[in-house]
């Protein structure tokens, strides 16, 4: 085989500011954020005119809003910006890894080949950041809606059993961070490895069904991340006891 299969779990840094490494997946996530922001700005500047693209975007955003409303009828306005942002960022970040040129355009450094682009969510750092952000937002929404009583859920001193249950709840919040991060990272990174291996074995046509599968997986993982955040937020603001 002329070239070896190049798969690396950690995103490769493309340049450094001193100790801080700017990785190729950070670059792609910046580009995805820029893309989404440009669409939002375009939509806002053209809000008076009619256009098919506007109708398309409106349909998607409104049906997602109805979905958020069906899960939490009274607080949809509060949650929708965060949940929709998570959904669109995860979806487009995962789809960005399927574009031609990802993981293939790069330069040859002394320790190997360094690709310039890599799918945004195929990097554990970015998914971990998203997961921490989502779980902290859940706590913030809980505090905003219930006040300091929200933290009684974790520190419940009425009797030893409740104290233990509260402690388990605290542990499960941290477990949620790891679960979010690894679910998204595992799905998207495994998809990239699959595509690389298939393309390595059969260079033509055989990748097509797998790219279709990856499109589907990107959409579902975005939906799952956003829906899980929404459901946990719902649980957080509901007053059980």
């Amino acid at each position: 085989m002329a070239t070896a299969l190049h798969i690396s779990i950690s995103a490769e840094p493309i340049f450094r500011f001193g100790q801080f490494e700017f990785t190729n997946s950070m670059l792609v996530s910046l580009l995805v954020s820029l893309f989404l922001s440009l669409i939002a700005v375009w939509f806002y500047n053209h809000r008076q005119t009619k256009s098919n693209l506007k109708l398309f975007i409106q349909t998607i955003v409104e049906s997602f809003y109805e979905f958020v409303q069906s899960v939490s009828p009274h607080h949809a306005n509060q949650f929708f910006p965060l949940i929709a942002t998570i959904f669109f960022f995860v979806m487009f970040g995962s789809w960005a890894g399927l574009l031609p040129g990802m993981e293939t355009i790069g330069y040859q450094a002394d320790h190997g080949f360094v690709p310039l682009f890599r799918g945004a969510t195929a990097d554990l750092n970015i998914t971990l950041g998203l997961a921490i952000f989502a779980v902290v937002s859940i706590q913030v929404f809980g505090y905003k809606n219930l006040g300091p009583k929200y933290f009684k859920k974790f520190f419940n001193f009425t009797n030893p059993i409740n104290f233990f249950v509260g402690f388990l709840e605290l542990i499960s919040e941290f477990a949620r961070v790891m679960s979010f991060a690894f679910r998204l990272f595992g799905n998207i990174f495994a998809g990239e490895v699959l595509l690389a291996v298939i393309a390595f074995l059969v260079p033509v046509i055989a990748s097509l069904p797998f790219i279709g599968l990856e499109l589907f997986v990107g959409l579902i993982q975005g939906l799952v991340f956003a829906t899980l955040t929404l459901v946990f937020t719902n649980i957080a603001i509901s007053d059980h006891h």
Partner: protein
Amino acid sequence: MAAEAIKSSSDVIVGATIALGGIGPAIAIGLIVSKALEAIGRNPEAASKVQTVMILGVAFAEAIAIYSLVIALILKFV
């Protein structure tokens, strides 16, 4: 113990990790979806609610398979 008798990154170990790790989630997802289908069959009006909860449950179950896949990838590529 023979030194280096079984390396943790040997292909058999990596394959066994993901193979064993996929059994539980596969059974779990099958059970979840079958119960969801039963529920939809009994009450077709609640189909969209059942579907939402089913997708959530499937995501939780699949995450376990993904954990074992990540370990297998780490063993193979790091």
